[in-house]
């Protein structure tokens, strides 16, 4: 019996595709993507081995957040924001240099739409860059003298999980409607700003379903009550999406321009220029209603509306070639160029607020 068990183990180790444990994800076999779906982190899964140029499932992102907090405990704390519909905890990372100064806040969230995998990848990249360079890079260290960074790597955790396990192109949350016949709300149509007036659907089968009411979703509640609470300190609200290659200012629900529109555009265009200098990518800058289409109930418009002066939506790569399934070999260049844009925006806001100190 023992010999048989050992033989089977040996075969499983030597010929995993034939005899090994194969995890079957609904509709997608291990033959796709060369078995990447069941590729687990090696047993020595610590921060030094974390590959920022690969897409990570939520379990690995949770683990990464704890490891980041532990490794950079002098500046990083992990905080609970709220629960998802399926009772998964939402965590954000706060990067803060402990001083007695009252700091302003730069907020960034990623993964509000499940299928936009490049966005959580960018949030992780951003955190890594700040933490690896804050001691040596004067540009970053000056930010930390006056500002705390708050980063929410995955806002729509339930949707993200669903896009890994069941439907790669899922967009919404996973809340249940109509007696369990209909699932998910578009979290970026669920915020309390001109809710469901345009570019959103009251039909729960649609991808832009705005929910049963403004802020009906637990994820939206968690984010908006937090931001509402801290709005006097938040200088900049960034929300990261894909795809399309845009830097978008308010508003989406009207063509009327925000009061500081010219400044928002100027800052956005400088950021797009810095971005293009990295790898040549063309990003277009403008208000969502001018550049794309009308929508209402999105997080960025809401954040701006409650008083956060600088609010942008980023739409990352690409331009229609790979769309949501941006290949992993583009993660690094995308993150590098986006980083350049974000830091440029932060520079402009910083100098406006505190001069050139």
């Amino acid at each position, binding site marked *: 019996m023992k010999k048989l068990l050992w033989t089977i183990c040996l075969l499983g180790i030597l010929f995993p595709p034939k005899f090994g444990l194969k995890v079957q994800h609904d509709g997608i076999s291990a033959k*796709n*993507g060369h078995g990447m*779906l069941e590729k687990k982190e090696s047993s020595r899964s610590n921060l030094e081995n974390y590959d920022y140029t690969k897409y990570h499932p939520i379990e690995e992102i949770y683990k990464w957040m704890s490891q980041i907090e532990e490794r950079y405990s002098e500046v990083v704390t992990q905080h609970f924001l709220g629960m998802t519909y399926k009772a998964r905890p939402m965590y954000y990372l706060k990067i803060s240099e402990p001083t007695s100064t009252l700091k302003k806040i730069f907020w960034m969230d990623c993964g509000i739409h499940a299928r936009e995998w490049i966005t959580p990848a960018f949030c992780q990249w951003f955190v890594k860059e700040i933490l690896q360079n804050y001691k040596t890079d004067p540009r970053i260290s000056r930010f930390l003298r006056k500002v705390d960074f708050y980063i929410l790597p995955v806002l729509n955790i339930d949707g993200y999980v669903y896009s890994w396990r069941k439907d790669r192109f899922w967009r919404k949350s996973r809340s249940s409607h109509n007696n369990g016949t209909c699932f998910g709300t578009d979290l970026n149509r669920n915020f309390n700003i001109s809710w469901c007036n345009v570019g959103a659907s009251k039909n729960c089968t649609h991808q832009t379903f705005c929910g049963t009411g403004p802020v009906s979703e637990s994820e939206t509640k968690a984010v908006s009550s937090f931001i509402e609470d801290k709005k006097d300190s938040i200088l900049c609200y960034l929300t990261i999406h894909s795809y*399309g290659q845009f830097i978008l200012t308010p508003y989406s629900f009207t063509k009327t321009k925000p009061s500081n529109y010219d400044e928002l555009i100027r800052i956005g265009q400088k950021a797009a220029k810095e971005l293009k200098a990295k790898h040549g990518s063309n990003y277009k800058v403008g208000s969502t209603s001018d550049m*794309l289409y009308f929508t209402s109930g999105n997080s960025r418009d809401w954040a701006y509306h409650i008083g956060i002066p600088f609010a942008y939506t980023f739409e990352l790569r690409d*331009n229609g070639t790979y769309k*949501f399934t941006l*290949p992993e070999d583009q993660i690094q260049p995308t993150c590098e160029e986006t980083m350049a844009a974000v830091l440029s925006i932060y520079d402009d806001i910083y100098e406006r607020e505190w001069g050139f100190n």
Partner: protein
Amino acid sequence: MLARRRPAGPGPTALLLVALLAAEARASWLIRRPLSPSGPELRQAARAALHFFNYRAASPSTVRVLKEVLNGTALIREEGENIKVAFSIESYRTENSQLGTCSALVGFKDHKSRPTVNISCTPLLDQKERKKEDYKLYKQIKQLETPPFETTIPGKLGDMDPSLQPLWELAMIGNSFLMWEKTTSTSSYYYVQQITNIKKWIRPDDFIILHYRLLLHEFRTQEIISCHLHLVWHPEKPSKTQYHCQDSGTQENGSGNSEGSGFL
């Protein structure tokens, strides 16, 4: 062409007539409207034009991708508008890093699909090279073993096995036809996210038949639409595309003929 009517006299009727006049004049004038190169209208027109070009050229080795809109104007007609647009393109095969430009006149009829397109583009390769590349792809596809039914191109991680790339490039001919047909002026635009359930066979007259399911991403509504597409292709002969889509419950069918490399 100014006033075609004279106001009958002063008073409220004058106002009414002025209003009518303005409405009538607008309808019969060709109003020229400058458009921003980064705005959605020119991008929409450029996309529609390029889809049409790629489908008509039916050359999988020289599929073009929109790079940047350069300039353009809209000419407003009674039933819609004509958009004149110039844009830069690059080869889908990024390793070739070939660039080019196109200029097109795209006619949108109010809310109707199948915009009329008149387009010319600079060549990416010379005629001989292109024929050679298309034949190379033709041979590759002929020799290729049909991938398993559930294989998706690209994969979940955006990965594409190099051996499957010719299938994706050929599918772009059919996909371009579909995307062109469905494009309207009112900012509905489409990209093919993925192809799967691929069936391939060779007809006795040496045409390649490709039949597959595709997922179409509609940008404005963010919906993912499932379609089936049937493509008949040969490097030097006119090709044919047929499709049907499950578009929010209703079925949409379309079919069309593309020219083969004779177009260029």
